């Protein structure tokens, strides 16, 4: 089997995708051509005032039916094709289509007058399409064959070797015996066809090469992003190690393992511990995000979203009881459709959202989790009547290290990494997350916040 595949494209999915799409486009286009041919055969006499002989009518009808039949066959074969460069693949399929179409067109040209028919112009159009998908040598061979056969037919008619099928009423005088016209026309159409092939083929090759370069540089970019994340992880880890040691000593002192500590010193040591705990929290968050960004592919398993909430709420139970916050789950779905996702990552995301809702909601507040069915997915709303987020902060709230102005001023502890992790996880699942404040549970002085997440099934 001739290999039509350029060496760079063998493992290049984009290339195969493009060929596949073109093949299906050709098939659709061909049905259009068949329809146009039928209209042409039936109405040419009324519209153009031309007349076909019975031989021409029969030939044109047979050719049109033939195109219709082979197009149907091509359409049914298409879906079974594999993108294997060593077997019959979509590219060979394109070549077969090309040869069938050119044969049909050659017959149409012959039966509508050879040199006299404007249909021969369609060869140029076929050549351009062929140049876009077939390798240079193959399309050049086809172009030369088409020119040779066309010239052969034209001269065959000229020397009366082949019967001429003139379209009555098209031309005032017959041209097929006019040697000068035959020479001029053949030279021009041959030249146009050949140049179209050369130019289109060159441009197509250039485009493919540029596309490939783009893909390669994108891969390089991804690789350097991975390197960067690994570097960040190692640096952060190096920072965390001494912090952990520091923390251990502080705990020993604070818990009296080294004997009593003076009250004044103790209170400052407690501040040191709180601040170093903050730093450890931050390093943990950075490590978490770096790891998430390194995870290019998430594991996908079937998950019932309610189970995730059950686990998360169980883990937060102490927190909920301490703050006496009421947490409700409202499941408005008719069916418990499962989603495909990574339960570990989704747990991190929802755990973050719920602990935020608890943290920023005053004692005896309300947190409502609503699950709704949406087209191709699930919508999850986590709504509270807590401190809310000021309007000017809403746009930045999902950025790394960003903390809303009201929670910074009120002295809530945190690193500002939670929401960027959540957004990252949800987007990795092909979902979206948005935020509203005030929420629908808003009370006076308690605007509340609502996070709306969509996860596709």
């Amino acid at each position, binding site marked *: 089997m001739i290999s039509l595949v350029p060496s760079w494209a063998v493992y290049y999915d984009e290339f195969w995708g493009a060929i596949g799409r073109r093949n299906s486009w050709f098939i659709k286009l061909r049905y259009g051509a068949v329809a146009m041919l039928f209209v042409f055969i039936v109405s040419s006499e009324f519209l153009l005032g031309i007349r076909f002989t019975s031989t021409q009518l029969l030939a044109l009808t047979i050719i049109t039916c033939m195109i219709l039949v082979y197009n149907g066959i091509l359409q049914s074969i298409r879906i079974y094709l594999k993108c294997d460069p060593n077997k019959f693949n979509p590219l060979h399929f394109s070549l077969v289509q090309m040869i069938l179409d050119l044969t049909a067109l050659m017959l149409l040209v012959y039966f509508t007058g050879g040199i006299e028919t404007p249909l021969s112009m369609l060869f140029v159009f076929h050549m351009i399409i062929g140049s876009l998908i077939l390798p240079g040598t193959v399309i050049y061979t086809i172009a030369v064959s088409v020119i040779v056969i066309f010239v052969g037919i034209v001269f065959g008619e000229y020397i009366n070797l082949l019967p001429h099928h003139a379209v009555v009423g098209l031309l005032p005088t017959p041209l097929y015996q006019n040697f000068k016209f035959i020479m001029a026309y053949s030279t021009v159409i041959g030249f146009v066809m050949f140049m179209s092939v050369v130019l289109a083929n060159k441009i197509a090759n250039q485009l493919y090469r540029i596309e490939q370069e783009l893909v390669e540089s994108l891969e390089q970019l991804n690789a350097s992003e991975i390197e960067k994340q690994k570097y960040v992880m190692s640096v952060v*880890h190096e920072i965390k*190690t001494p912090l952990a040691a520091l923390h*251990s000593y502080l*705990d020993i002192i604070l*818990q009296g*393992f080294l004997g009593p500590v003076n009250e004044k010193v103790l209170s400052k040591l407690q501040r040191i511990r709180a601040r170093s705990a903050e730093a450890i929290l931050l390093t943990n968050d950075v490590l*978490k995000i770096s790891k998430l960004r390194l995870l290019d592919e998430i594991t996908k398993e079937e998950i019932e979203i309610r189970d995730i909430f059950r686990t998360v709420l169980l883990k937060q139970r102490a927190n909920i009881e301490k703050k006496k916050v009421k947490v409700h789950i409202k499941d408005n779905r008719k069916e418990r459709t499962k989603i495909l996702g990574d339960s570990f990552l989704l747990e991190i995301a929802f755990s973050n959202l719920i602990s935020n809702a608890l943290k920023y909601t005053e004692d005896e507040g309300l947190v409502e989790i609503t699950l709704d069915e949406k087209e191709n997915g699930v919508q999850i709303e986590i709504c509270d009547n807590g401190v809310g987020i000021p309007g000017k902060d809403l746009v930045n709230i999902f950025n790394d290290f960003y903390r809303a102005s009201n929670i910074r001023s009120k002295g809530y502890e945190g690193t500002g990494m939670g929401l960027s992790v959540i957004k990252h996880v949800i987007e990795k699942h092909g979902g979206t997350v948005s935020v509203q404040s005030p929420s629908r549970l808003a009370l006076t002085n308690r605007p509340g916040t609502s996070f709306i997440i969509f996860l596709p099934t």
Partner: protein
Amino acid sequence: MAKIVIIDDDPDILDASSLVLHAKGYEVVTATNPEEGYKVVKDVNPDLIILDVMMNEPDDGFFLAQKFRKDKITIPILMLSSVSKTVGMSFGISELVPVDDFVEKPISPALLVEKVEYLLQLRKER
């Protein structure tokens, strides 16, 4: 009283953990690298090993744990690490790494004591 070997390359972590465990009356022996740790465990035959994941290499703690188990040393191991679950490595107990518990650093004195007591209790019941 029970004997505990702590293997960690960070002298401060060794010191701090020893302090806490001493105060609770345990006998503590320390080692700062995997080779020394292996020797000490062989000599002392402790009731519990506290092992750091990253020492000279990012994962030599894992290999040491595997080596202990391969050599039929079944002493419970409490593994400490600064990474662990924060970065998504969720180790099931004795699944990938043959240890009995896995804790993320920094570990508070109370939690350390709690884990140690639990693992020692478990060893007695075995």
